[in-house]
């Protein structure tokens, strides 16, 4: 692969330079500062901060709940995008706008609203509580909050791709005798897969770092429903800046690794479809 791209429009060098500069200032610089700050720690101290059993319990809660929330939205998001793209119905515009609402809400507002809704005396909680389903102040509540906050990601990444899908492909498949299920499974889904993965990755990454919406509904019980960002906050409460950055670095590394893997998957699935040269 030659580094120099020949396209009709000039300006590759300039635009790439600009891209790298912008990314450096906006993304890499703060993250570098974070890593550099944590490098003041000895390995032992770093390890003590990040491998404490209570902190490890929060990794499980945070990454586990984020994975569940992102997976739920993978399916729900696909369904929503499908309905919004494929069927005309009254109030479509409104539903479309509603999808973005979790984006626009301050997370604390979302958290307080959800906690109010699912508390044992809340609108929904009062019916769930007698059934023995406890949502507020349990890990389940964390999943609910994360699912709410990350809803738009899958919908918004899949929607444009679905809109661009050519109907001719489906018609061709149907004329060749494919069943509807086969059309979906073998024609449509492979086309959507890269977008679905992107949406999943974005939702997951956002959920991992979520604090405001979760803290009100989690209950924050040690070893049960504490999230990793809360550990960072409680380190800061002790003026333990280094311990806080150590945990932040772990979150950063794990998130980046996961994003990298998902990006790789997406790359691979797109290549299989012959989209990229």
């Amino acid at each position, binding site marked *: 692969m030659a580094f120099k791209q020949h396209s009709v429009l000039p300006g590759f060098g300039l635009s790439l330079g600009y891209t790298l500069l912008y990314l450096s200032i906006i993304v890499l610089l703060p993250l570098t500062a974070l890593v550099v700050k944590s490098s003041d720690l000895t390995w032992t101290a770093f390890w003590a901060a990040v491998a404490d059993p209570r902190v490890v319990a929060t990794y499980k809660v945070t990454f586990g709940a984020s994975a569940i929330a992102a997976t739920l939205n993978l399916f729900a998001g696909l369904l929503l995008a499908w309905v919004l793209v494929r069927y005309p119905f009254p109030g479509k515009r409104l539903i479309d706008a509603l999808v973005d609402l979790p984006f626009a809400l301050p997370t604390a507002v979302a958290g307080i609203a959800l906690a109010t809704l699912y508390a044992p005396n809340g609108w929904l909680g009062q019916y769930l509580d007698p059934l023995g389903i406890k949502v507020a*102040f349990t890990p389940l509540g964390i999943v609910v909050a994360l699912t709410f906050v990350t809803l738009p990601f899958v919908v918004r990444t899949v929607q444009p791709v679905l809109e661009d899908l050519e109907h001719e492909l489906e018609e061709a498949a149907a004329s060749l005798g494919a069943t509807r299920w086969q059309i979906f499974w073998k024609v449509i889904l492979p086309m959507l897969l890269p977008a679905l993965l992107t949406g999943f990755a974005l939702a997951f990454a956002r959920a991992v770092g979520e604090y405001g919406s979760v803290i009100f509904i989690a209950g924050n019980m040690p070893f049960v429903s504490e999230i990793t960002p809360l550990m960072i906050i409680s380190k800061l409460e002790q003026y333990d800046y280094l311990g806080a950055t150590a945990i932040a670095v772990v979150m950063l590394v794990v998130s980046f690794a996961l994003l990298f893997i998902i990006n790789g998957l997406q790359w691979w699935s797109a290549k299989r479809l012959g989209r990229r040269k």
Partner: protein
Amino acid sequence: MIKRASALLVALALVAQPALADVTLLNVSYDVMRDFYKDYNPVFAKYYEAKFKDKVTIQQSHGGSSKQARSVIDGLEADVVTMNQSLDIDAIVDKGKQVNAGWEKKLPNEASPFSSLQVLIVRKGNPKAIRDWNDLVKPGVQIIVPNPKTSGNGRYTYLAAWGYAAKLPGGNDAKARDFVTALFKNVPVLDSGGRAATTTFMQRQIGDVLITFENEAEMIAREFGRGGFEVVYPSISIDADLPVAVVDKVVDKKGTRKAAEEYLKYLWSPEGQTVAAQNYLRPRDAGVAAKFAKQFPAVKLFTVADFGGWAKAQKTHFDDGGIYDQIAAKVAGK
């Protein structure tokens, strides 16, 4: 148009008050002090203007006590800090060097103009018959307390419960530890701050008892009405002193030292103490205290000094791996 108007305003100001300088102070404070300073600031401004012929404007910033201290350490230019534990001001001394050491000696009462204490707030009619600390560890009693790891309010509660058990006849640290463990076994939710705990208890109707500052009880009454809860004064509680300090580095840079020092000193005046008492903060001034005696039932108090001071208490109990962490692990069955 705007230019013309502002020029006119400036001209008017020059004509009207030739000798009036305008000082602006930033008071960085913690959450629940919002209501008190809202009342105190105009009272102080009036006094200051009458005495020095200078206008003073006070800006407020509120948040969790330690979070606010961190903002000051990181460079928020506060003229004064008003916190809920001396540890937070000590942190500014140690880490940011914006406050000079010895701040607690510059004002009376260890620089804390008023105090509060931890009280037990129960549902109307006290259905669980909560009278004192020992009723909290009964099975089936749910207690709402803010997280001692993230809230000064929660730390005071923990120390109050510890002190109660340690000071019982035959009490000692081992018994106190068991008592506090039993207490935290009854805590279903750990909110990150005092206000959030109040919301959980009053709005979501979770728990039988909320443990919080006495002045927060008054806030609850104003917010939710007086019909929904009762305040139970335990036999013994902890004296939560609420310290204040001038941020030396900032006032010297901005030239606001005089106003900042007056602002804090006036907290001890009968006027300042009266505003405090009206906000259910226990006044230091004997005259004001006598006037409001009905409002503040006498409770036997001990202080954080019994734990060797805040720095030591923090290290022993609340730092990572400290006794509270061990208790939390035990409660979680780890």
